[in-house]
């Protein structure tokens, strides 16, 4: 199968086959990352720009390692949110980066849809590393990869996503990806953070964590995003954690072999107790490892599209 996309901007636009193709490619990449010598020359001479308009340590580091393992030339371009509004327009930034020879631009941006602006304005390939509240495809792909690795499949699994669904790009990407691959999705959180608009075939909404946990194979905990003003939606972290925090106790309601995931960084004692975070069924660190392989796959596939089509 040939990968037919110049950009990877959202899970919503990918077909199930395309998602699986990325996951399969990531499996091969994972082999590379398990070698003593973890570097291959694949992207030698190709310039990848990490264009980050939002502070991010994890995603940026993960992309950077992925790029290094593929031998790309890397340009890091970090900008604060305020300069997005005041300074150079995104379309001008895009044109500048293209003039510097950027082939692939990995963009993280506080506003939903920003990667589209970039994609319209440049011939470079765009990889979305998270845009506003819209999508975070690389996170979702690594989640799917990890679920497939642990459970052997994704189809028909009951996956519960817990927390600030409204403001979460991870949730949106995962809902799209999980539904496409045949899983059943449950969402749970305070009513103010789980709007009815998410309801669709395959998705069920809950406001009670205990009820939602019944018969669940995988739990994806979302970060309480203080920077996204979660606190405008519920009274206090304390109350949130009392009703929606995962503990050793309520975890017993889920299936025995339940897999616990979190995109990180964890607020211990808020989204989950330390006991849960360090439980043997928690694959949070495996997610981090898989993230590199998945991002290598995304880079490789967009680069191969370029080599086949330009």
């Amino acid at each position, binding site marked *: 199968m040939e990968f037919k996309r110049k950009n990877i901007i959202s899970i919503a636009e990918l077909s199930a086959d395309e998602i699986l193709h990325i996951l399969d490619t990531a499996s091969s990449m994972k082999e590379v990352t398990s070698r003593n010598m973890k570097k291959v020359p694949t992207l030698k001479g190709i310039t990848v720009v990490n264009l980050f308009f939002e502070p991010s340590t994890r995603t940026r580091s993960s992309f950077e390692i992925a790029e290094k393992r593929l031998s790309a030339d890397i340009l890091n371009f970090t900008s604060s949110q305020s300069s*997005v*509004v005041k300074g150079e*327009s995104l379309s001008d930034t895009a044109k500048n980066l293209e003039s510097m020879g950027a082939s692939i631009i990995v963009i993280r941006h506080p506003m939903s849809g920003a990667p589209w*602006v970039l994609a319209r304005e440049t011939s470079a390939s765009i990889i979305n590393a998270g845009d*506003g*509240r*819209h999508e975070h495809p690389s996170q979702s792909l690594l989640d799917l990869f990890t679920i497939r690795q642990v459970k052997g499949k994704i189809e028909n699994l009951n996956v519960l996503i817990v927390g600030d669904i409204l403001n979460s790009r991870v949730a*949106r990407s995962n809902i799209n990806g999980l539904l496409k691959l045949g899983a059943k999705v449950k969402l749970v959180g305070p009513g103010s953070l789980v709007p009815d608009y998410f309801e669709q075939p395959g998705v069920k909404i809950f406001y009670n964590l205990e009820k939602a946990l019944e018969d669940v194979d995988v739990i994806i905990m979302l970060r309480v995003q203080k920077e996204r003003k979660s606190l405008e939606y519920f009274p206090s972290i304390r109350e949130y954690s009392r009703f929606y925090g995962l503990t050793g106790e309520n975890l017993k309601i889920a299936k025995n072999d339940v897999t616990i995931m979190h995109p990180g960084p964890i607020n211990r004692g808020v989204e989950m107790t330390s006991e849960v975070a360090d439980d043997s069924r928690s694959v949070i660190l495996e997610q981090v490892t898989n993230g590199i392989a998945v991002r290598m796959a995304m880079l490789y596939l967009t680069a191969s599209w370029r080599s086949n089509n330009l």
Partner: protein
Amino acid sequence: MKTLIKNGKVIDPSQKIEKKMNILIDGKLIKEYPGNIKELEKRKDLKVIDANKLVVVPGLIDIHVHLREPGFEHKETIRTGTLSAAAGGFTSIACMPNTDPINDNASVTDYILLKARTEGIVNVLPIGAITKSEEGNQLAEIGEMYKAGCVAISDDGMPVTNSNLMRRAMEYVKAFNLPVIVHAEDTYLSDDGVMNEGKTSTMLGLKGIPNASEEVMIARDIFLSELTGTDLHICHVSTEGSVRVIREAKKRGVKVTAEATPHHFLLTDEEVYNYNTNAKMNPPLRTSKDVKAIIKGLKDGTLDVIATDHAPHSEDEKNVEFDIAPFGIVGLETALPLSLKLVEDKILTISQLIEKLTINPANIVNSDKGTLKKNKVADITIFDPKEEYLIDKNNFYSKGKNTPFQDWKVRGKVKYTIVSGKIVYKN
């Protein structure tokens, strides 16, 4: 100088005329409807417009336009805005006060009217601000602005949140018989939303503006109008609930009128997919359920007027992230053909449509325009209802090219726009 418009199908809802007839213009005024024109046509000083197969209507009136001057001349000027109006068949346009400086005092009104007289192509009817700087704190000098020529007051995009102040404004304008025009929005409920709140906004991760944001404010203003007895006009109604509330108020005899824009009766929020900033306006495009309700409201007369909310922006301003793109689209040059779709779809008769574009808006701003009655000023629009073409923003006279209707196939082309007896636009 006399001008004869002959053989046109004349539609004048103000006189319930809908028939083939001739119109004779003498100087600035409509003089008569001559039956036999053989003798007349022999006269050398007569200009003849053959309107055979064309429709002749009172000059269209748009009571919701942003002319941007003074202050935002890179978006539009009174010159380009009125050119755009003429090309769209509008002979009178009312301009909102959100310029820089804001039209909240007579000197700005004077400036606008001076510019309109010297550079304008069509009649400009300024709308003054309700509060100083549209800040919602203190009433603007409404009486002064009335004297200078303002035809209504509105804080358009900056709704007055303080209900008591709104009440005072409604009471204060009684002395001048000015209508209060409102962009109904509870900005707390809108909460920095950028599009309609619903499935589409949820998918796109864009902050939504709920229908209730408009509806609660309409309800408030209707009750205030009831309390004060002041004429209330509601701009660009976009939701099913709004139509319902207005319909009910009218039934009770509240002095409320309302408008709809072509984009709100033709488009849904799905236009926003791919983060198309030319589908970003406030109120936002809603769902098909709302569109149906708007259409029904136009049909049963709940919505009296079609207005454009013509809001030009430069291309650079729109070509940015959706969140920071300004609200608004241009509308003057597309309104007539887009509205004619309502006739094509048998929702309105042509006469009902023209009523919403002429006499109804004229009545709201207490203007004696919007009619072809004898001895009235000859503001006349002549269009070909059959001519089909593709909308092309590159041909717009407006500086703003921000339209979601690019490449739409439409029917109905303006052929002549006549203001005070003079042809100001001809195609």
